[in-house]
């Protein structure tokens, strides 16, 4: 029992510690593609360390919502990390606290509070950013629900630990439904975490920002929590894509969990993350950010993929 609690804690620690690394790797790889040297992959940690030691300037009109939002944005990905298979292939004690749908709602709670906080200080860019971010999540939400329901339809359960075993069984490994759903989820993740083609994460132009304009008002420790929370959200979503939908290999097995298998699980997870980072870098280096009014096209394509996945699932079950 103590051991299980330890693994539960390790899962959360992995998300907490490895999340900023993703951003560092993506930035470094992107700079390398552009024939630049780029910042070190440890740069996000240095930024966080610097921000954590600074005081913050707060608008005098800010209410409690403004101060609560960084905490929500920081804590919600950590709660979701308990529900999904980050390191172990079997459910840990808290895994039955909620299913995939609950995980989606908890994650969107963080986004909801970030939007409220951007409106709270009544700054112009914050208001614009949160209205745009709401439009994107309004469009992304039906896609997420459709994907989760299709996955549930295939696996007959909503607990992520059981879903991944069904999806890599021989009946579904090469099934078009499985890969169409994975592609749709990847597109939604790109939209929800503000990556190209929906939003440019490295933009410094406030008028075109979506995600980052919501945190413009923050400084110091609260900004650090916001940034860290955003990084962890990205990490958790990619973990869902990798360890639940596409490649749940290398996880610590039931019964044989010890320090070595946990270490292997961490290393394989980071390796899978590196692969997905390369895919993201290729996408971000080859296409530009789309116009805002083309975002429905992007997410509409994801809906079509998910709908086709359901069609293929029923067909392959019939035959």
């Amino acid at each position, binding site marked *: 029992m103590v051991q299980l609690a330890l693994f539960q804690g390790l899962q959360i620690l992995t998300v907490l510690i490895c999340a900023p690394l993703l951003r560092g790797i993506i930035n470094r790889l992107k700079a390398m593609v552009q024939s630049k040297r780029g910042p070190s992959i440890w740069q996000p940690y240095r930024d966080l360390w610097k921000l954590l030691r600074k005081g913050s300037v707060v608008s005098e009109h800010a209410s409690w919502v403004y101060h609560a939002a960084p905490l929500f944005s920081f804590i919600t990905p950590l709660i979701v990390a308990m529900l999904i298979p980050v390191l172990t292939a079997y459910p840990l004690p808290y895994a039955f606290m909620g299913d995939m749908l609950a995980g989606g709602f908890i994650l969107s709670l963080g986004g909801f509070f970030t939007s409220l906080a951007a409106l709270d200080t009544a700054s112009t860019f914050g208001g614009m950013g949160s209205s745009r971010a709401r439009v994107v999540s309004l469009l992304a939400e039906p896609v997420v629900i459709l994907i989760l329901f299709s996955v549930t339809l295939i696996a007959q359960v909503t607990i992520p630990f059981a879903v991944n075993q069904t999806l890599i069984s021989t009946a579904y490994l*090469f*099934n*078009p439904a499985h890969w*169409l759903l994975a592609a749709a989820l990847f597109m939604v993740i790109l939209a929800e975490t503000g990556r190209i083609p929906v939003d440019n994460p490295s933009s410094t132009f406030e008028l075109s920002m979506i995600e980052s304009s919501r945190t413009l008002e923050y400084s110091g420790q609260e900004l650090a929590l916001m940034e860290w929370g955003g990084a962890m959200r990205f990490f958790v979503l990619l973990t869902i894509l990798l360890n639940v939908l596409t490649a749940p290999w290398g996880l610590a097995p039931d019964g044989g969990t010890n320090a070595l298998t946990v270490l292997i699980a961490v290393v394989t997870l980071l390796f899978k993350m590196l692969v997905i980072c390369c895919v993201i870098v290729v996408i971000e280096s080859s296409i530009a950010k789309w116009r805002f009014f083309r975002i429905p096209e992007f997410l509409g394509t994801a809906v079509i993929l998910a*709908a*086709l996945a359901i*069609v293929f699932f029923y067909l*392959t079950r*019939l035959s």
Partner: protein
Amino acid sequence: MHPSASLVLLAAPAGISTQVLQVLGALLLLTAFATVAARHINGAIGIYAIQSFALAMVAVVVGYFTGSSDLYIVAVLTVIVKCGAIAWILRNVTNRLHLQREARPYLTIPVSLLICALLTLLAFFTSPAVVAPGTFLNEPPLAISIAMVLIGLFLLSSRRHAVIQVIGLLTIENGLFSGAIAIAYGMPLIVEFGILFDILIAVIVMSLLVTLIQRELITADTANLQRLKG
């Protein structure tokens, strides 16, 4: 070959072949959707070439598992004629046009995609009524080919750019071709020759026509052709 021997030949690899065909079928359907979603004509032509290549792969897989060598020849011809010649001709024509993309489509792309999804559902619901029971390749390939025919028809009727309309016609042809493979494991070789030659000539004639439309009307927008009515 002894009848029971051929039965064994068909029964053993059915699992693998079905999975490979499912993946290729998904690719066919996805490329059909991608031609609808493509903004630039050259993109749509490239997607058509990919679709034709996937079709050739379907022919190879079915040829391998049914042991008919005709389908290999058909696959090679498909790659040469469709991925090579037709794509090259269409690209050449498009590069000479002023209008490289659909300027003012009748329907926006998301709406078109949704309609195509509905058409696909229609195809999937009607195909079990059409297919003969007991065939080696069961419903999915046929449903996909019906969906491709419907999407091609939709492309033909909802777009104004002449080259996109040609691609709609070619998508219909690809759908019929895959349907022929799904139901009858391909047609006699001489018929396939005839169809591929026909399609090649049709594309040449249509590209000449597009060039003429462009010369007369400055654009390749077929909506302007209504003014020619006597």
